């Protein structure tokens, strides 16, 4: 009996299977190999993977859980496969999107042309929670605000990729892309055989090169780069240590740094050492108590002014959250057209803004079919899934929306695509999303061919966030089989850091 026995697509778009129950062409080899394993054999591999994750301490923390601060990272062994032509589309679409968003951020912190031309309503920007008027007029190196981005995509009923959310502040999860791959190659090595799975390891080299190029003038030769973490209790702390280790840079907390006369130093056993580039994983609000929240103990007083003076670089820059505000999201297609003169390659999910009186009326009349989201919450918090909510929950949300229309948006419930996930001794369809990671630098936007596929492990659930019962899958981007050798070569010349790695 195979682990796919009795598998049903239930009318959803399934990543692996066609509606007729046959595996899609790009999944065929994987399907055959997995079918050759008995459920018991597969379960052993699952246990092996779990043990590896546990001993390595690949974990995440859940806020509000007073017991185990860490939980093992739930990992589903069946990979998600993206064929080459789909990836091309995603790559072009995401590059276009991030390019436009960086232009948008530069504009709104300088001349505000797009606001004066009334393409985006000015009030939505200047009154957004994450807009930073304190940072108006400052010039980040290379005019780039977002260096590191993780965009959430979903596929709808007919398999169309749509952008659900741009994460432009401190997106996390890329460590799991790398860890998932490394575990899967150890636990199920044979399933990779002869499949043109493109490697993801060079993400780290790209990131390091991009961080280095941010170094202030005169410090380019050997810049000191650090990763600034809120500390061990942050939910993404594992990732911070992982990235610092992989990048070979110091992992620092705010208390390790200080600013003197607009220069940032870290406290070392041999005295102060100047810091040139900070990959910060602390939100704006907590970055510098002098400029932002004065009660923050996580940040570094004086950091923002040192940055403004160009004596240290930050990745990402300050104030990027205004562009991933869920209300501004609705305008991203227009933002792309405004700056690039192109049609958006990847569509948004249709979005209603409670801020707009006509939309507000529609939202309140259709609460039972819509998904309502708070504009500035993430991680699946502050959300109402209308069709699955109780009447009381809907009424409570209606009140909240009325009170602060600017803070809410609504979207139709998209029937997210599903992929098989292993549960107990067989596979069942579970909803998935896709988060590719983009890097923006002087030479434009780059994507590693890979992504985090998050999966809602609870049956029927649409919430893929790890804090709420989500897991993840390794995500394989396939090279074009015919010209694979050539493409590998190309990408290594483009990046220059391609590392040797299996298939």
């Amino acid at each position, binding site marked *: 009996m195979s682990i796919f026995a009795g598998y049903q697509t239930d009318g959803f778009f399934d990543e692996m299977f066609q509606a007729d129950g046959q595996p899609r062409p790009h999944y065929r080899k994987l399907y055959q190999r997995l079918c050759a394993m008995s459920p018991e054999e597969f379960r052993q591999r699952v246990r092996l993977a779990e043990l590896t994750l546990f001993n390595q301490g690949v974990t995440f923390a859940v806020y509000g859980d007073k017991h185990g601060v860490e939980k093992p990272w739930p990992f589903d062994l069946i990979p998600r496969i993206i064929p080459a032509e789909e990836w091309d589309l995603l790559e072009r679409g995401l590059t276009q999107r991030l390019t436009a968003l960086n232009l948008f951020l530069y504009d709104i912190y300088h001349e505000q042309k797009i606001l004066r031309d*009334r393409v985006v309503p000015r009030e939505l920007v200047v009154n957004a929670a994450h807009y930073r008027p304190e940072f108006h007029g400052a010039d980040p190196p290379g005019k780039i605000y977002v260096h590191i981005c993780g965009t959430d995509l979903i596929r709808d009923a007919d398999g169309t990729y749509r952008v659900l959310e741009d994460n432009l502040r401190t997106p996390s999860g890329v460590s799991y892309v790398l860890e998932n791959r490394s575990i899967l190659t150890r636990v199920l090595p044979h399933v990779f055989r002869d499949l043109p799975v493109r490697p993801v390891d060079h993400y780290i080299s790209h990131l390091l090169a991009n961080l280095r190029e941010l170094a202030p003038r005169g410090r380019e030769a050997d810049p000191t780069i650090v990763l600034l973490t809120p500390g061990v209790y942050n939910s993404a702390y594992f990732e911070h240590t992982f990235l610092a280790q992989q990048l070979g840079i110091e992992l620092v907390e705010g208390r390790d740094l200080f600013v003197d006369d607009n220069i940032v130093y870290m406290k070392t056993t041999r005295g102060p050492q100047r810091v040139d580039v900070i990959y910060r994983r602390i939100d704006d609000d907590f970055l510098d108590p002098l400029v932002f929240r004065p009660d923050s103990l996580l940040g570094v007083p004086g950091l923002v002014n040192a940055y403004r003076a160009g004596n240290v670089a930050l990745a990402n820059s300050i104030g990027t959250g205004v562009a991933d505000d869920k209300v501004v999201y609705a305008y991203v297609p227009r933002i792309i057209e405004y700056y690039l003169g192109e049609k958006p390659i990847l569509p948004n999910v249709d979005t209603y803004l409670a801020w707009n009186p006509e939309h507000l009326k529609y939202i309140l009349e259709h609460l039972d079919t819509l998904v309502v989201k708070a504009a500035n919450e993430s991680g699946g918090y502050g959300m109402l899934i209308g069709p699955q909510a109780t009447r009381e929950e809907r009424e409570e949300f209606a009140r909240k929306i009325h009170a602060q229309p600017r803070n809410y948006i609504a979207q139709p419930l998209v029937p997210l695509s599903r992929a098989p996930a292993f549960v107990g001794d067989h596979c069942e369809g579970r909803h998935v999303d896709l988060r590719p990671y983009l890097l923006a630098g002087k030479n434009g936007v780059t994507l590693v061919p890979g992504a985090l596929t998050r999966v809602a492990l609870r049956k029927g659930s649409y919430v893929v966030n790890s804090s709420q019962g989500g897991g993840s899958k390794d995500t394989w981007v396939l090279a074009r089989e015919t010209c694979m050798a050539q493409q590998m070569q190309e990408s290594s010349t483009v990046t220059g850091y391609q590392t040797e790695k299996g298939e």
Partner: protein
Amino acid sequence: MRLRVYHTTRYLYPQPARESHNELRLMPRSDDDQTCLDFRLSITPQARIFAYDLPSGRVHHFNYRPPHNTLTIQAEALVVTHRSDPFYFLQLTTEDRAFYQLEGVRQRYAEFLAPTPRVPLVEDADRIAAIARRQAGASTASFLISLTRALYRVITYTPGATHVNTSLQQVLEKRQGVCQDFAHLMLAVCRRQGIPARYISGYLYTGQRHEETEAHLTAELPAPLVSGDAMHAWVECLMPDERWCGFDPTNNLLANDHYIKVHYGRDYNDVAPVRGVYHGPAEHTLEVSVRVVREA
């Protein structure tokens, strides 16, 4: 009018403070109404001073890391003010509310129409607006003059009645406050009426008897002008000619050439004259002295 400002801020710590970082918004603006000719800043103990510019004005900053028991910030400015007749531009009779409903206006000044943590748009503000409307002419300027007077009457200027974090609702309940409270309350009323309004921090020259100023709005018995021996705060509202006009509800005055603007913002948080963090004892003593003198 040539005015010279001496502004000293001194922090005294019971035990040594260290790692002190401060941002200063103390330098008067140069704009249509005034020109800052000279500005000097000195810090004791001595620290290197840096600066950057925001649309609202220049911000200075410095840090001092060694332990210290006192920190003194001295600012001296020479400013020439031009607005000798604040009524000169005001249109007092014609109805002009349509201007404030223009979508372009609402967008251009969106940040000065929105609530802030210190200026929630409380409903009680409408009652004050209604009182002001009753006694006002048709124009917005007339309404704002009336509103300035209404606030002056509703709230009693009481030094020490409130502190820096007193909420607007508490001020309304106590009907007492200092210039910051008057300004925040006026912002709330204006913004609820759809009139873009911004918080101004600055100095008021009080050396002259106020009866002589044409700006005095009421014929009632004169009270001495107050600026609280510290910086003063008032409000600027957007007029239908898209100029900003200053109103001082604490003194029931229009801002004339006795007023020196330092920074503007959405509320006090944007313009706090000294904002700092340090390691050390939580409690400290703050001494502020402000002197404004007229020069020939």
